[in-house]
């Protein structure tokens, strides 16, 4: 069974670098200010979400276990 997870972008930290949108275009989209927002679509791979989090230049992305609420380290 795959792990259920939730990705989150901190709007106070996001600078719109869009690396996450390049790595996981289904899981992250731009809002009207050019910042990224996590969409958490069904079926998104945890590996890709963690790669997006690891690639964020300002550490704005966190990924948490949907069942326990614990942060999943990238």
């Amino acid at each position: 069974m795959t792990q259920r997870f939730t990705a989150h972008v901190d709007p106070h930290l996001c600078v719109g670098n869009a690396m996450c949108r390049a790595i996981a275009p289904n899981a992250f989209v731009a809002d009207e200010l050019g910042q990224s927002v996590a969409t958490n679509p069904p079926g998104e791979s945890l590996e890709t979400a963690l790669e997006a989090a690891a690639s964020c230049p300002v550490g704005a992305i966190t990924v948490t276990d949907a069942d326990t609420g614990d942060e999943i380290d990238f």
Partner: protein
Amino acid sequence: MLAQFETDDLTRPEINADPWGYFGWLRENDPVHWNPVFKTWIVTRYADVNVVLRNHELFSSKIPLPPNLADEYPPIDEADWPLADDLAGYRAFIFHDRPEHLAMRQTIHRWFTPRAVEKWRTSMAARAQELIDQYREAGTMEVKRDLATPLPLLTICWMLGVPSEDAEHLYELAARVYPGGTDNHDYGGQRLRVGVEAIQKLREYFTPLLEERERDPQDDLISMIAQGETQGVYTREDALASIMILMDAGHTTTLNLISKGILAFVRNPEQWDLLRSDPDNLAASALEEILRYDPPLKMVILRYTTQDVELGGKKIPAGDSVSYVLASANRDPRAFEDPDTFDITRSPNPHVAFGGGIHHCLGAALARVSGQETFEALARNFPRLHLEREPEWMVHPVHHMVRELQIGWNR
């Protein structure tokens, strides 16, 4: 329009000494302003600067190469114009658009994430303390030469994978490259010649190194870029230009950050006392405030509209140059309360010192680590710092940079 300033000449000493006077006036009176001297639109409000930063499809980073020298100000000696042909393919990753820019940046960005740069923190702190100890007895130091130049240089060399004994020589060359070298305006009309000569010397140095790393990759940035070249992501000239940008940008910006941060604290001694009361916890927010209050780059002249764009009520035609002023956006009262007050506890502090969007400063996290460790070390060592003399400001349309900063303390 410019009654108070009479000129758009960005090389005037008063504009170099006080960018907030001229650019602040523009921000309030003509926030998207056509500068006929530099032939560029100057964007000064926080919200508009973010529009430019975050809409890379509308605002291209692909500067014309070879550069259009007829538009240069101050003028470049006409006899030197043919030298610009040498720059035709010389395009660092920051002067590319997507999709090329994404592939180029992905080749190296893993080295610059917040987590990746943490490994440098201890050595940065130790280096800062070592430099402070060297000068403690003297009671004085010239910040740029004695602290801010040697501090990041070794890190850059380790990261790139060049011997540290070559560091100073390479940096001197990198500071002269054309365009954008921090020293190049010292050479006036000769700056293209001086810049192209420096680029040629850097090419001679880095070309064999790239070839060596292609054959025998190491754990360093030049190897990553060499690999990018093998994969067709970088041309040879892209690779060389990118290495030179990493050399200069990583260095000069840190130099400005440290020297102008010290200046801000000398002029706001109560903020120094506050930092000293709890350096461990306040260094991070203090650094963000230094970045906001007096950012290393005051302005960026580096975007071209890809179509007609309306911004701040002005119609900017396709193909025009657009510049954005980080220093004025960071003091925009629409975005920051008491913007001219230096407050190291400011929160939130969404400054644009590192730009934003897809070109957000690659080295931002590294600059944060080195800056935090430097100011923490200074605060732990010196109850009070003073200026030995008022600093002179260098002439540069992009950098707001002291020529030197002689500080002192009681032994």
